């Protein structure tokens, strides 16, 4: 049975005169935990942006559940969630309002309105914030007043609350101390294994730099200069692979 959830066919992306992604072919299967490795500027963020449909490739096709992005409706598209490297939170909203933004897709306009007026329920937001080890005294604090690590966890909570099938994370462990990294890593990956709820993220792709975190991943993809250099099982990863990309 074909269980491919995301597929890139001959993807290239050009920005001005620079070729950021160069003829990438990639298949991501349901339930896979993939680590994306590569130097800064190798094209990891662009690849994630192509995978979640934020940027359109100059060439090639992206398929989600065997359908091209153009064919998908809003509900289907919302099955992908992203933790951005630069977090992309709304600075003027509070932490809980930002987390509640993750629920916008499954609610109507009135919910968005209530969220901005601070009169919506934050029960679910608080649950995920607690899971991300955020203390309740920061719930109603504006984003700009939070530390780097707190902002990082708010962004993670906003993605997790979407309970999407596919989670893309671009360096989600930035700004976190070692203890928090373990907690957050388990939080991002645990749902995949235990399949706690129907809506829990089943497929995870994480761009990262720390090689000591690779143990919990099934596959490792190495990218350099916009090209995939290797796409292998984690157990097969050798020093030679890493030398190719770093």
């Amino acid at each position, binding site marked *: 049975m074909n269980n491919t959830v995301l597929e890139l066919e001959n993807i290239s992306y050009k920005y001005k005169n620079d070729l950021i992604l160069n003829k990438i072919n990639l298949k991501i299967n349901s339930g896979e935990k993939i680590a994306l490795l590569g130097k800064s500027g190798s094209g990891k963020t662009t690849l994630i942006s192509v995978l979640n449909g934020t940027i359109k490739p100059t060439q090639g096709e992206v398929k989600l559940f065997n359908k091209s992005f153009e064919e998908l409706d809003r509900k289907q598209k*919302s099955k992908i969630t*992203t933790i951005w490297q630069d977090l992309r939170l709304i600075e003027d*909203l509070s932490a809980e309002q930002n987390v509640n*933004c993750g629920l*916008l*897709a499954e609610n109507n306009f009135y919910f*968005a309105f209530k969220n901005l007026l601070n009169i919506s329920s934050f029960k679910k937001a608080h649950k995920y914030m607690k899971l991300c080890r955020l203390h309740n005294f920061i719930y109603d604090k504006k984003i700009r007043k939070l530390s780097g690590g707190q902002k990082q966890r708010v962004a993670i909570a906003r993605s997790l609350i979407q309970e999407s099938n596919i989670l893309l994370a671009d360096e989600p462990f930035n700004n976190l101390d070692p203890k928090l990294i373990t907690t957050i890593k388990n939080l991002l990956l645990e749902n995949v294994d235990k399949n706690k709820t129907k809506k829990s993220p089943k497929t995870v792709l994480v761009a990262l730099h720390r090689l000591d975190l690779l143990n919990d991943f099934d596959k490792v993809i190495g990218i350099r200069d916009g090209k995939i250099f290797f796409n292998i099982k984690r157990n097969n990863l050798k020093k030679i692979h890493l030398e190719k990309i770093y």
Partner: protein
Amino acid sequence: MNKLKLNYTSLSFLPILVCIPLGYQLINNIHFGGFKLFQEFLISAFNPKIDNEIIITVIKRLNETILIGFFSWLVSIIFGAIFGIFSSNIFYKIFNIPSFIYVIIRFFLTIIRSIHEVVWGIILMQIYGINFSIGIIAICIPYIAVNTKVFAEQLETIDYKSFESINQINAPKFSSLLTLIWNPIINTFKNFGLYRLECSIRSAVILGLFGIGGIGTSIFLSFQTLNFRELWTYLWSLAILIILSGLIFKKIKFNTTNKILSIFFIVVFFLTILFSFSYFLYFIFNNNFENFNSVSSLFKSSLDLGLFDFLKLILETIILSLLSTGIAISLPPLVIGIFNNNSFKIFIKIFAFLLRLIPTPVILLTLLTFNNPSLSLAALTLGLHNAGITSKLLFTNLDIQDKRNYIAMKSLGIPKKTSWLLGLFSQQAKSYLAYCAYRSDIIIRETAIVGVIGSVGLGWQLQESLSSFAWQEVAIVLIAYSSIAIVGELINGKIKNSLT
């Protein structure tokens, strides 16, 4: 020989050179017939008329001005926000609508904005007759367009990455739009609302000078009867009103986390929209078009405007704008720099406040007591009034600026004026010039007011054409006005962009 190098600081002072031709013409036009009147005008400022009768009149007239100012502010700020959303690129990105539509909307609003509220007022008065609501409508038309521009510009500052992130959540489009624009709209209202309220009150006063009612009409009548003591009673009461409205507005905290307050604002928002639409419909269907029966009037009316005269008027309007802008840019830093001590500063601040407070037609009429009507006099009036506004901004920015450079320079024994210039003003010059570029847009529009009173430029021609119901001429003058204002805005936009 070293080449002359211009920087932002020197560019701030250079426009003062306009004072050479301006001063020459003013000296040639001086007359001594009205010096006594001018003296009387100044003395009356310290001895305004205060009795029961005038206090009752002041309250009644101020009440009218507040009503016109407040309602025009409320309607224009709300509709400005709504149209601001429709003319911002974020709306078109979220809904995937072709962006040429927003270019068309913006161009249409630029035309509306280019015509001063006084011109709208005079035109509407000619069509509908003198009416209290004409004042509100005349202010609302250009103000909605101005506010739209401000809100749209603020919405364009939304971080594109926030847009991508909300868009990626794949929420309903209206939810995404609301989430993204909510805070920029609230912040614009907080930062810009008070200033627009002050502007609305000033505009209501100026329209009053042209017969709409309120304190402006009383000011004009007392000036016509040379009753300067009464005139100053009205001016001081207006000053109190502006200061008080500023203080009250500062006290109100727009706390968006206060649920009751938020709901109150939303109710006011929707009620204003509902009321405005109902009133608009009522106004359209229940008014007799006294002097303007149909669009065909445009073609039936006579056109006595010679091409040469018309081009001369256009040129006069452009020169008037340039001279006034020169004064408005350079006079404040020059005066503040020369008289750089605390007691003088207080005096300059009071003088600048008076220049902002006294409506331009009244300044012009006062100056006419000892100078013949001329382009230079009109330019001086407009320049002084706007210098009052630019100096307020300069003072505010200088007050909050880090003064360490200035203190360090003074401690090195550098003269106080040089330290002020290089240690304080030079750091402000760039942003000051950027604001002046924006201000010069307004000066172009304001040439209409001094033109009407001072027999200069297109403003004067507009008044003449309207008085004789020559609608074709009116249309041509308005097109010329709009064209000058639009070209001016484009040039100033380029200057502003290069400065920010």
